[in-house]
């Protein structure tokens, strides 16, 4: 579904991602693991068009390299950015509305927002509140719901469990599995290695902007690549 060939992302003189190859098949959860600064977030930023990148990115057979982020989003790639980045001065409803802004009629948007409020009851309770007043876990639910409003085919998730309480982390991982069962393809960047490998089909270990290991989640779990990546070998 998504094919990435020799993706590079540079910030000035720093090369955050160097020649990454990655292939995500429809319906799977693909995990990208690695230490801080390994280039995980930069890879997602490159794929979603948020930062300029070199290399070739193909989505469902369409070359999307170099396209602006809004076009990539409209093709069906959703990104839940690191740190959630909900619009804190907007209400919960307004956040949801913007998630579906480019999709369907006002009625369709309303229908989707109702579905989200059903799925995440907390969003219904807090509908009219400023999103900045939500707790971290609630903000993460809102960020996910906002991305789902567009009914993406591929969802890129950047550290969805970061900074959450343990039960919230569980809830987020359960939700990811649920979304997969509903047919969504997910590319998941995570620090929580055991839980990610537990739910992922495929996994890739990034170290210094390169893939140091790639395989099924079971292969990665059995190898020493993850330890190596975190210890900096």
């Amino acid at each position, binding site marked *: 579904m998504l094919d990435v060939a020799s993706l590079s992302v540079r910030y000035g003189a720093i090369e955050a991602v160097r020649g990454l190859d990655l292939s995500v098949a429809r319906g799977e959860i693909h995990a990208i693991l690695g230490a801080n600064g390994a280039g995980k977030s930069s890879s997602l930023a490159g794929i979603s068009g948020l930062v300029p990148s070199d290399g070739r990115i193909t989505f469902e057979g369409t070359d999307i390299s170099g396209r602006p*982020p809004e076009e990539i989003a*409209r093709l069906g790639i959703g990104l839940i950015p690191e740190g959630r*980045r909900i619009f804190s001065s907007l209400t919960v409803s*307004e956040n949801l*509305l913007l998630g579906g802004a480019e999709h369907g009629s006002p009625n369709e948007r309303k229908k989707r927002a109702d579905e989200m409020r059903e799925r995440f009851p907390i969003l219904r309770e807090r509908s009219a509140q400023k999103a900045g007043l939500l707790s971290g876990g609630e903000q993460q639910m809102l960020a996910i719901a906002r991305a789902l409003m567009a009914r993406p085919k591929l969802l890129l998730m950047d550290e969805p469990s970061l900074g959450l309480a343990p039960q919230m982390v569980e809830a987020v991982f359960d939700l990811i599995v649920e979304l997969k069962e509903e047919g969504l393809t997910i590319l998941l960047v995570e620090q929580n290695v055991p839980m990610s490998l537990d739910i992922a089909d495929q996994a890739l270990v990034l170290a210094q902007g390169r893939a140091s290991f790639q395989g099924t989640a079971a292969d990665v779990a059995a190898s020493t690549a993850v330890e190596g990546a975190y210890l900096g070998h």
Partner: protein
Amino acid sequence: MDIFIQQTINALSLGGIYALLALGLAVVFSIVRLINFAHGEVMTVTGYGMWFVLLLNLPVLLSIAVGIVSAIVIAVMMERVAFRQMRGADVTTLLITSFAVSQIIQVLFQNGISARPVAVVLPDWLTASVMLGPVRLGMASILSILVVCAALIVLRALLTRTVTGIAMRAASEDFAVVQLMGISANRVIATAFAVSGALAGIAAVLWVATRGSVDPLMGAIPVLKAFIATVVGGLGSLGGAVLGGFVLGAVEVYLQAFLPEAALPYRDAISLSIIVAILVLKPDGLLPEQTSRRS
């Protein structure tokens, strides 16, 4: 007391014009971090648009409509031609670009029409005054207050009830994420410029109505005042821009009315001192922008 009421009406009407201009600056600044000093030239274009229509002996309402429409067109054109190429540049580069745009338009009017003011004569009913009990009220002042209120209500509805308006508010917080929602950056920015143009156009009509003439530099002073108003209110904050406009209008009008004659030449110095005092007490302005903007 009568004088006080009269001056309050004047303060509200002048403050309202500053508020509209300041809002236009703030709408654009909150989204693209550009302090558009060519905003004054949007007013100038409106003024000459009105002048041209009246020159052809066409109705006043048509001249107002043409004035406001040309303001929207010139504001959107400025973005398309000049500022879009500079998108993402730092604040200083954007600021200097806006000075360039401002200079070019000023020179075009100086050379193309005249460096001297041309008269824009509006009908008597606009410049007349009515007696309300013991208080004499200028039609223009009353109209101006009503028009400003209407413009603020419409803008509020746009920003809270339309998808593009909500996207504009979101963009002032985190532009990249707005794009991640599939919303076109160009559309949001062009709308912001159109809104700021419309506000400047309305302000210009009110400004010209009280002055009766148009000249190539007419926008410079009001836009400078509007810039002060946005800073007093909190740069980038829309509510702050409105409040700052009214505060500045009130300070100017009351000083003009109630300062002893000997102190009048120092009016602007005193009013700016008051502004500086406000900023010393509230360095981020009266209603600072709330933002989770990332670096």
